[in-house]
């Protein structure tokens, strides 16, 4: 029985390999389209209405899982993936077939045999499986906090990971970004930074100062109701104004 198939893999040699193996093991299958990623899956479905997709899991742009979600039961799907223990474990419990790269002829032949048996039936809906897989492969993005500070240093734009920042201090129109090996100026005001930084790690201690708690060496009571912060890797001390001292009580 003849069938039509689509191969999606970002690596050209691996597309060629799968194509030649399929030609040998499943002569009735016509590969109607090759794709570098899953971006055009809708268009391919419209134009060719293929009966089966061979999807690489990791592809730039639209990956194999997203592509399977978009196919949404309109074609059979076989995942082709290099070693990935989480994926493999999920596949083994799922209703979908998968082939590990590099594959043996026997394994591919088995996948083809199963496919042929299934071709008559309606393709399985993979919604649930795809969700499980997506969660395993790309753990839910951590809270959307700022991870990089872009600061102009001379003609260049310096990229500073926020973990490296010891403190931020507003300075007239600018905000000073101080790290253990120097400092830079950015235009973003303290107020905006506060909204974007991870509040667990970055504490406001003064109207004009945000400190990276990981970089605090010690805190001691200072004049009036204030406190003073000594830092690791920096000689400066930072003043904690009265409104913020409560964060340091009883620690």
């Amino acid at each position: 029985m003849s069938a039509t198939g689509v191969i999606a893999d970002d690596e050209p040699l691996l597309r060629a390999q799968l194509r030649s193996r399929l030609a040998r093991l499943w002569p009735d299958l016509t590969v109607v389209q090759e794709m570098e990623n899953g971006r055009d899956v809708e268009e391919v479905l419209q134009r060719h209405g293929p009966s089966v997709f061979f999807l690489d899991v990791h592809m730039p742009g639209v990956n194999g899982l997203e592509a399977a979600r978009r196919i949404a039961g309109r074609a059979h799907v076989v995942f082709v993936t290099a070693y990935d223990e989480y994926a493999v474990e999920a596949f083994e419990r799922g209703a979908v077939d998968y082939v590990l790269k590099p594959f043996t002829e026997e394994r591919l032949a088995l996948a083809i045999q199963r496919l042929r048996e299934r071709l008559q039936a309606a393709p399985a809906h993979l919604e649930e499986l795809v969700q499980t897989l997506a969660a395993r492969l790309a753990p839910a993005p951590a809270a959307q906090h700022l991870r990089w500070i872009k600061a102009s240093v001379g003609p260049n734009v310096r990229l500073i990971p926020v973990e490296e920042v010891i403190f931020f201090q507003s300075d007239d129109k600018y905000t000073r970004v101080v790290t253990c090996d120097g400092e830079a100026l950015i235009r973003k005001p303290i107020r905006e930074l506060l909204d974007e930084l991870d509040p667990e790690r970055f504490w406001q201690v003064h109207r004009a100062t945000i400190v990276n708690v990981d970089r605090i060496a010690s805190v001691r009571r200072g004049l009036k109701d204030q406190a003073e912060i000594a830092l690791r890797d920096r000689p400066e001390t930072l003043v904690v104004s009265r409104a913020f001292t409560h964060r340091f009580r009883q620690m």
Partner: protein
Amino acid sequence: MNILQLLEGLTLRRILWVTAICAVASGAASWIFVNTYFDLLLTALPVGYTSMLLFTAASNVRQASMPREAMQILAIVAGSILGTILAGLLKGRDITQMFHERLAGVTISMGLGIGFGCVVVATIMLREKYARDQARILRAESERHQLEKGMLEARLQLMQAQVEPHFLFNTLANVQHLVETDPQAAARMLDSLIRYLRAAVPQMREAHSTLGREVEMARAFLEIQQVRMGARLAFRIDVPEPLRARDFPPMMLISLVENAIKHGVDPCCECGTVVIRAEEQEGRLRVCVADTGEGVKPKEGGGLGLANIRERLKTLYGGAAALVLEENAPHGVTAAIEVPAAA
């Protein structure tokens, strides 16, 4: 500043101590003076309590004009004088009479108050100094532990397998295909893979490396990636021959190159270029990896790789080395490692 804040530190414990000291001192004094114990205690307690109150307040007043210790001594002296007067009033005596007829007694109780007070203040100061020293020792200790931990972690990171199974199996799948279609290309790719693994597998890795060796490992990796990604990847290596013999920490350059592919070139579907460059400037060896890829997204982290490199640079060179990341125009990132150029 209100009264409560001034009296911070006036604990029941402190009051009991002062009471006890006064009781003992009166007992001792009753051996010397003709006064009764009760009479002496009635003098000692006001002196003790007044001094205590003033001392507590003096410890809590924070201002810069006078050192705290001087304020405390002053409080004891003032407290003793006031206390003695207060004791006299309590006993129903007249103040003028006190300072004329009973001057000797008054001076003695003031003197004793001041003497005891100073001993107590000295004890407290010594205890505070001891606590401060202790804290300093603890801090120094913890900093040393931190450093040792850092060194150990740096060594561990180096020992951990760097070869991703995903990379390895995909590469082998490519070789598998090339063996059938282009055996010569397959041999070349295997060759690159072997060179890469020799450097990347921990058991085969050496603790010290040279820039030349690190560059060759990066080249092997890029050659493999180029076969895999086809026309999407181009690369260039510009490292002057004389710099290749220089010492350079292992596994850092490859980490930057992997980042350039993984976070830079691979995610964008167009083609990208990776350039490795090394130069010596003003006694510093600067090795950089530039890509024309996606660039960083403000809210996506760079993974552990960069933090590891920073940590290891700090352990190896103290503050003398740096990892600097900059944005490229029109897009992409340049990551540069700078170390002191020991010829």
